């Protein structure tokens, strides 16, 4: 039982970790907690659903399952399209809302409240467009494979784990080995000095939105694939996302993923140990404990 709970926690944790990377990047560079980030997860899932559904309708063979997985090529194509579309949505929100507030040098609390407003708007718009009825990428049933005594996972779940690990590694390389990564870290530390070093701060901020939203879209598609798609799915993940980002240390990509895994595992174990009704409280307890005991998180800088 415990071994299976660990496996489930690991899978849930990777989804949380991917979403938390976007939160940690926007938080470290824009200096505010974007509560609309959860909606990017939901919009990412619905965008992929829309694109993959349209592709499957236009050309039925694209819906035929690939190997052991429950979905056809329409979903990976839909995922890529969704990463782009969700990135553009995040840019649009920044242009219409956050960017204007930054230009006015608005206080952080104004940006946070604006984020709440944006979240409500985006969520309501999804409900209006798709209703609150759950949707699914596929109705195919998958048989979980036995990985070890007492541990099973479906091919979709294992693929999600692999894709997450690959993405975290890729983002880590982007941040540490490329010019745009250096620019992002420089902007995160000191925007004015970054500009004096030749970094186009506005363009770097746009790239951060695109990257964070694209990762949110992947998290949304994974959540949709492994559970279901609902307009509230991103909102429900918000607390675990922030717990993971803060536990990992704001600005740290590996920290966000590790934080996500810890939160996911803690939630899964809590179901076994103290009961399912406490699952939602676990992320909150972790968040409060980190803020009280180690506010800079596991990998955050002391400053």
């Amino acid at each position: 039982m415990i071994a299976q709970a660990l496996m489930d926690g690991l899978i849930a944790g990777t989804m949380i970790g991917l979403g938390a990377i976007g939160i940690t990047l926007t938080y470290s560079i824009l200096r505010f907690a974007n509560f609309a980030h959860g909606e990017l997860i939901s919009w990412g899932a619905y965008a992929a659903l829309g694109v993959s559904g349209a592709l499957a309708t236009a050309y039925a063979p694209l819906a035929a399952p690939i190997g052991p997985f429950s979905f056809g090529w329409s979903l990976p194509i839909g995922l890529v399209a969704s990463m782009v579309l969700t990135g553009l949505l995040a840019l649009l929100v920044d242009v219409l809302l956050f960017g204007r507030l930054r230009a006015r040098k608005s206080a952080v609390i104004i940006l946070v409240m604006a984020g709440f407003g944006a979240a409500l708007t985006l969520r309501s718009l999804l409900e209006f467009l798709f209703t609150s009825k759950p949707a699914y990428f596929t109705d195919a049933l998958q048989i979980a494979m036995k990985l070890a005594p007492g541990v099973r996972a479906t091919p979709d779940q294992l693929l999600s784990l692999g894709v997450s690990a690959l993405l975290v590694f890729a983002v880590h390389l982007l941040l540490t080995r490329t010019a745009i990564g250096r620019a992002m870290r420089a902007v995160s530390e000191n925007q004015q000095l970054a500009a004096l070093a030749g970094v186009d701060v506005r363009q770097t901020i746009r790239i951060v939105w695109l990257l964070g939203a694209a990762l949110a879209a992947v998290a949304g598609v994974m959540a949709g694939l492994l559970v279901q798609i609902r307009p509230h799915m991103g909102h429900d993940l918000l607390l675990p996302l922030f717990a993971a980002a803060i536990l990992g240390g704001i600005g740290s990509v590996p920290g966000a993923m590790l934080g996500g895994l810890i939160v996911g595992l803690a939630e899964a174990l809590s179901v076994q140990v103290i009961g399912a009704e406490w699952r939602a409280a676990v992320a909150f307890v972790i968040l409060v404990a980190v803020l009280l005991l180690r506010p800079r998180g596991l990998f955050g800088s002391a400053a």
Partner: protein
Amino acid sequence: MSEGTALSTRGLIAGYERDLPIVRGIDFDAKPGELVVVLGPNGAGKSTFVKAIAGTVPVFAGRVALGNDNVTQLPAHDKIRRGLAFVPQTENIFATLTILENLELAADILPRHLRRQRIASVEAMFPDLARRPALRAGQLSGGQRQMLAVARALIVDPKVLILDEPSAGLSPRIVGEVFSSLARINQSGVTIILVEQNVKAALAVAHRGVVLVEGQLRHEGPAATLAHDPIIAELYLGVAPALPA
């Protein structure tokens, strides 16, 4: 714009609030290869003046020209691409990046084939930095940080280098090293504009000095003359009337 100037300002009005400008109509010229020190009492607007030139403080009126190019309203990141480098007084390095990453960040705006070459060239000027490329810049001493900040600014091979009080908070020995470095950089052809409170050390390496008072340029002259100008020393610099040579 003036003929034969590396950098010039005309009627420059700048500050943080339009109704309360700190820089109030400055005409200034720096010739190619010159080292000009900007002096003045506290609150004279020296730092605001150079920040306005660099693009980190809003310019409300007037113009800034780099050579013959009007760069007044260009953002800071465009000015460095045109050869105008600025080293702020504080927080002038990226403490969470390594020494090499600080240099690479500055080199990222250069064509790819020049990057390694420029980094190597700057490392040759500051061998202390070259010895520990993987060290986090936040672990450097005050003097080493200042050297890294200057090295970072030099990566793009600027036409004009502006420094805001590079000696602030440094020991006299380190100040000497910093000013020696600046003199060497100037001798290599880079025009330098230096804001300094350390009048004696600055005038010793400068060709010319300008004195700002209440946001306006009130006096200028050759450094050697200013260093011995008792009125300037007494009124504006807060030092003994006769500066030792």
